């Protein structure tokens, strides 16, 4: 288990290095950063001055090493637009997005896993059809449209839920549902497929031949094996929700990372964008690593791989 954990950690670090290289090269993606900073009316002299001032004249390797060491110590540079440390900006927005993502994930999992299990227990019945219909509808509805529909009914017509802000947990209901429902179909279908496969397996027959009660057969013997691919998917989806909450955060006016990313792209605030991409990518890596570890815990055969 320890060997496996170390191996996966090595891979994760390598991926992180690759991501940091890509993120760093973002600065040069849109041309000369000094020229972009100086603005359109700048003279050649101004540009040269800015290039020197921000260190863009040094060799790329030196710039990268400098940027990376700073990033590792939590220094993501300075937003010239907001005149604030990037780290401060990001860490004031991050908790909101994390909370939203977590709520959305909890919503998605508590809806999709039981539904997937039910559908697998009774394939081709009403429950199964209902679950599949929900999956198709869920996958087909764009989340911005779904969010607006919810705002219209729950927020405006029935006045049940607040439509903006982050003051209390009630504010998070609609955004979480809107963000989470998009993940539900994939998780639901994967759970259903996995359960169908596992329920038909020999060791489930063995478990029943031992006289085990249906809940034990279902949850101890079947779900644990069926859930393994779901864990990997959920980890990726959680990362996706953190990064992909731009639309939802914008609609519900939630001051999170997604909203910040959108703002920064609009005003070309490169250091902020860079930091967001790096942080989200690292979240992905950490989540994938955690999912791998959880799977290794669930399935002893993975540990030796």
């Amino acid at each position: 288990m320890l060997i496996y954990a170390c191996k996966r950690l090595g891979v994760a670090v390598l991926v992180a290095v690759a991501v940091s290289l890509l993120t760093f090269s973002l600065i040069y993606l849109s041309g000369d950063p000094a020229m972009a900073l100086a603005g359109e009316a700048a003279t050649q002299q101004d540009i040269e001055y800015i290039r020197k001032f921000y260190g863009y004249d040094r060799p790329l390797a030196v710039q990268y090493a400098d940027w990376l060491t700073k990033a590792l110590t939590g220094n993501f540079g300075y937003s010239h637009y907001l005149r604030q440390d990037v780290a401060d900006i990001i860490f004031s927005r991050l908790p909101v997005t994390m909370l939203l993502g977590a709520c959305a994930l909890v919503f998605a999992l508590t809806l999709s896993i039981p539904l997937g299990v039910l559908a697998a227990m009774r394939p081709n019945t009403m429950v199964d059809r209902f679950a599949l219909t929900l999956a198709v509808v869920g996958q087909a509805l764009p989340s911005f449209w779904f969010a607006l529909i919810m705002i219209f009914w729950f927020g405006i017509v029935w006045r049940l839920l607040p439509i903006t802000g982050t003051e209390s947990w009630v504010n998070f209901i609609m955004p979480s549902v809107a963000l989470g429902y998009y993940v539900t179909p994939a998780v639901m279908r994967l759970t259903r497929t996995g359960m169908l496969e596992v329920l038909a397996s020999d060791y489930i027959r063995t478990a029943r031949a031992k006289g085990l009660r249906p809940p034990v057969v279902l949850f101890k013997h079947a779900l644990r094996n069926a859930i393994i691919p779901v864990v990997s998917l959920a980890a990726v989806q959680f990362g996706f929700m953190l990064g992909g909450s731009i639309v939802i955060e914008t609609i519900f006016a939630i001051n999170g990372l997604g909203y910040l990313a959108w703002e920064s792209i609009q005003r070309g605030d490169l250091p902020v964008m860079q930091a967001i991409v790096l942080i989200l990518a690292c979240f992905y890596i950490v989540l994938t690593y955690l999912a791998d570890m959880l799977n290794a815990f669930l399935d002893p055969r993975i540990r030796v791989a």
Partner: protein
Amino acid sequence: MSDILEVANLAVDIPLAAGMLHPVQGVSFSIGRGETLCLVGESGCGKSLTALAIMDLLPRTAIRTAESLTLNGEDILNAGERRMSDLRGNAMGMIFQEPMTSLNPSYTIGNQLEEALLRHRRVSHREARDRAVMLLEKVGITAAASRLRQYPHQLSGGLRQRVMIAMTLMCGPDLIIADEPTTALDVTIQAQILLLLAELQKEFHMGLLLITHDLGVVARVADRVVVMYAGQIVETGTATQVFAVPRHPYTQGLLECIPIPGKTRRGANLGAIPGMVPSLIGELRGCRFRERCAYAMPACAADVAFRAAEARDHVYRCLLTPAECAGNARRKVPA
């Protein structure tokens, strides 16, 4: 000898798009305490379904009917799932064909063994573990205590089948059903496992229903033999009776297929039964073996009842006696 298991007129029907499939029909037998009954027949003859029907583990779509089905005198035909789950793994256990896939890959051997006992008895984890160690040693697994912490993928097929056997013994069942327990194993391991089963059966004085298509196995361990063909019993008797004078042409054919030391001439061709098993879909009448039988007559198309041989407990489903078969031998199609 009181019977542990009594099966009377058991049938399994499975509705298919093409019609009703009748994989098991009119199967009756009984197993006494300490008795080994071998259920013999080729693939698809309904052996495994018979076993699953007794355990009430048939696929959801299958329909089970019977005149009576009793375990230790208790009706298990109408017992209901709750009572059945109390009996399964407790009064009767089952060993399956595929040791490689019959254990849950996610749990340790110890967990899966102890679980079987903890489900049915009020015992502590410690007691369950002690019994698991004791039984693992009994089935010939060395370093049993450390095996408890291992996972199925760390064991070979033979070891896994031994674990399966130990698992069915956890509650000390009265009846063990072993569905081709050695088919998936190496030939060298097969004999070991079978001898082990036979030994344990004697030691614990259980009834053993052994399903196999290996007649060599039957000759070694069986007290009684039930020969099935296409979902029906065609012959049943004690092992000695059936092997000495097989009555049904199908049993005769089966026995011609295997070499018997001292009986089969060196260099002589072994027999083969020509043709294929009939489709079991829809209404079935007459002897099901008649299409492949060398002695078939027009009368075989009507229903064929059991008839007794000289010994009363040796019955077979054929219109002809072995002597009459021999008289008809010239009609035999060259194989």
